[in-house]
């Protein structure tokens, strides 16, 4: 039995678009357990990214409450939200967003430095995670010298290195070919088993849905399915 990591209660998110209100999420109730490996699936505009934003503490709901374990996110201020993200959340982006002037090693090291670690104390941890994603021989290379698949591996290592409880991955395979996509998904699945960090994808890639253990379907801001 897994603990509840994230709980969403009656979440609504309304955006002001010009003179009109646009409801991106409507009455969402959802629980995400520790160690989950799941995806939000749906067409563009269904509310996948908005949901990731709310869970990741990048935005606040219009109504409803989000709990991280037993802490209410909506009662946090901007600085507390930043701390919540820094300590608990790892992000993986579709376009990798690696820092171009830094090497593989330095890109992975970066979140640990943000958390206040010293470089010499973090070295072993970084080397270990880089080895886990299979890039030990590329450690000194810059992102421009790597393939798309390798860049996404670096992004995964960067998300995992601070040992977060939750990783949010927005369309992580969208920029990769089939072979690389499958390799990345297998890697993430393995790491999910090893590190026990919950992984939440937002995707409409069918390959992803074959790997996840739970698939939440979204349409027009509402949950239309929740398959285990």
């Amino acid at each position, binding site marked *: 039995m897994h603990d509840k990591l994230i709980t969403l209660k009656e979440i609504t998110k309304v955006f002001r678009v010009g003179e009109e209100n646009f409801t991106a999420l409507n009455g969402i109730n959802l629980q995400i357990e520790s160690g989950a490996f799941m995806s939000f699936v749906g067409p563009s505009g269904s509310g996948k990214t908005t949901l990731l*934003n709310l869970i990741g503490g990048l935005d606040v709901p219009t109504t409803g409450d989000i709990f991280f374990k037993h802490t209410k996110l909506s009662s946090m201020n901007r600085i507390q939200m930043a701390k919540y993200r820094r300590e608990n959340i790892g992000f993986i982006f579709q376009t990798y967003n690696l820092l171009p002037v830094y090497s593989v090693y330095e890109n992975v090291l970066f979140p640990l430095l943000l958390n206040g670690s010293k470089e010499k104390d973090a070295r072993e941890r970084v080397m270990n995670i880089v080895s886990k994603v299979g890039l030990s021989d590329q450690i000194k290379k810059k992102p421009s010298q790597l393939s798309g698949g390798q860049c996404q591996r670096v992004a995964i290592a960067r998300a995992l290195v601070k040992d977060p409880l939750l990783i949010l991955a927005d369309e992580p395979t969208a920029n990769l070919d089939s072979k690389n996509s499958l390799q990345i998904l297998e890697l993430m699945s393995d790491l999910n088993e090893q590190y026990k960090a919950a992984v939440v994808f937002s995707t409409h890639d069918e390959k992803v849905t074959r790997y996840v253990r739970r698939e939440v379907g979204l349409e027009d801001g509402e949950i239309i399915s929740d398959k285990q």
Partner: protein
Amino acid sequence: MILFLFRGILRDKSRFLFPFSVVTIGVALVVSLVGFMEGVFMGMIDMTAKLNAGHLRLVNKPFYDEEHLHPLDRALAAQKQTRLWLEKNSSPKIEWSPRIRWGALIDVPNANGDTKSQTPVVGMALDLKSPNSSEVRRLQLDKSLVKGQLPRHFNEMLMGSSLANDLEVDLGQLVTVIGQSFDGGLVADNYVVVGLVKFGITAMDKKMVLIDLTDAQSTFYMENMVTDWLGYLPSFLSFDYYRIAKKNINSKLNTWMKNPPKDWAKDDQPIAISILDQQNMKSMVTTFTIIKSSVVGIFTFLMILVLWNAGVLSGIHRYGEMGLRLAFGESHWKLILTLGIEGLFIGILGSLVGCIFGGSFTWYLQEVGLNMGDTFAKSGLMINDVVRARVTLGGFVQGIVPGIFASVVGTLVASLAIFKRSESNLFRELEAG
């Protein structure tokens, strides 16, 4: 973290080289300009002080009020007593030198004893004969002598080289000084020209003659009398010190005047003035300070403007990095702080390199100088023909402080846009690449 960021700055030429170059060039220009301006202006102040104004000056007020007429009858008596009083009642940092400033006609006879040439001159009498004379050292008369020697005997004279040329005078020439004595009578006394001096100041070289103080006292019947006591301070002391020293002496003079030396006339009223009270120096110093501050201010403003834009460009270039750091949980304040530290780092580095370039150029102008004799020839300014810059600690400070300030402020102003960035758009922005 800071070291990590510095590593990034140094690797990313597009975000390092431009602001670094701006700071370096700006600081080098400010250091050079300030050094040059300080050199020219302070050189003029120093020269004026050494030649005839002193940093401080004790003078009889009736003489000072009409000094363009050289009214020797208003000179101050009791020379020895006055020296003792000054040494006792003023700062030990001040070195006092008595002078007589006089005006007369110089008549140059030909072989028959008839007038060959004649001209009015500006005369200064000072201690030229004492061994280790502080006046000779201060005016660097040894170096200024282009021909002949310093006076050693009774009634010997130094003459400006251009003046000697105009009067067709050479060494050994007997000339007659025709003027007015202390008591208003006509005096005519012979002097032998034993040296020709060139101060490099056109106004002086064309008009001035120097004689020993004791000879002047004899010629003008001024035993134990001088027109001026010039006080000299170490050059590192500021104008503020002159003002304080002047105030201090004047307050003590008031007490002394209650029981003055018996040789003083009833209406004698010695006053202390500083160089700033003479020859319009105060307004010149004010103008100079305003110009110098304006130059530094304009350069600082321009640097801020350019560095602000450089910061905006860098912000665009690093848009992804900033978004990523916000998403990863770095607070807006910390992000701006690190950018400020980056600005500080570039500011310090640029300022140091700028100081090396600017300082080297200033040092070159200090050692070699710039000959502007043709420009100054008709100006009458008490300024050396060869103007020199001056390497000073203040010059470097006036370059470094604006350099660092501009770099930090420019970066911070540019980074204020970070506050406007909403975290809720980060996913969308970062995915847009």
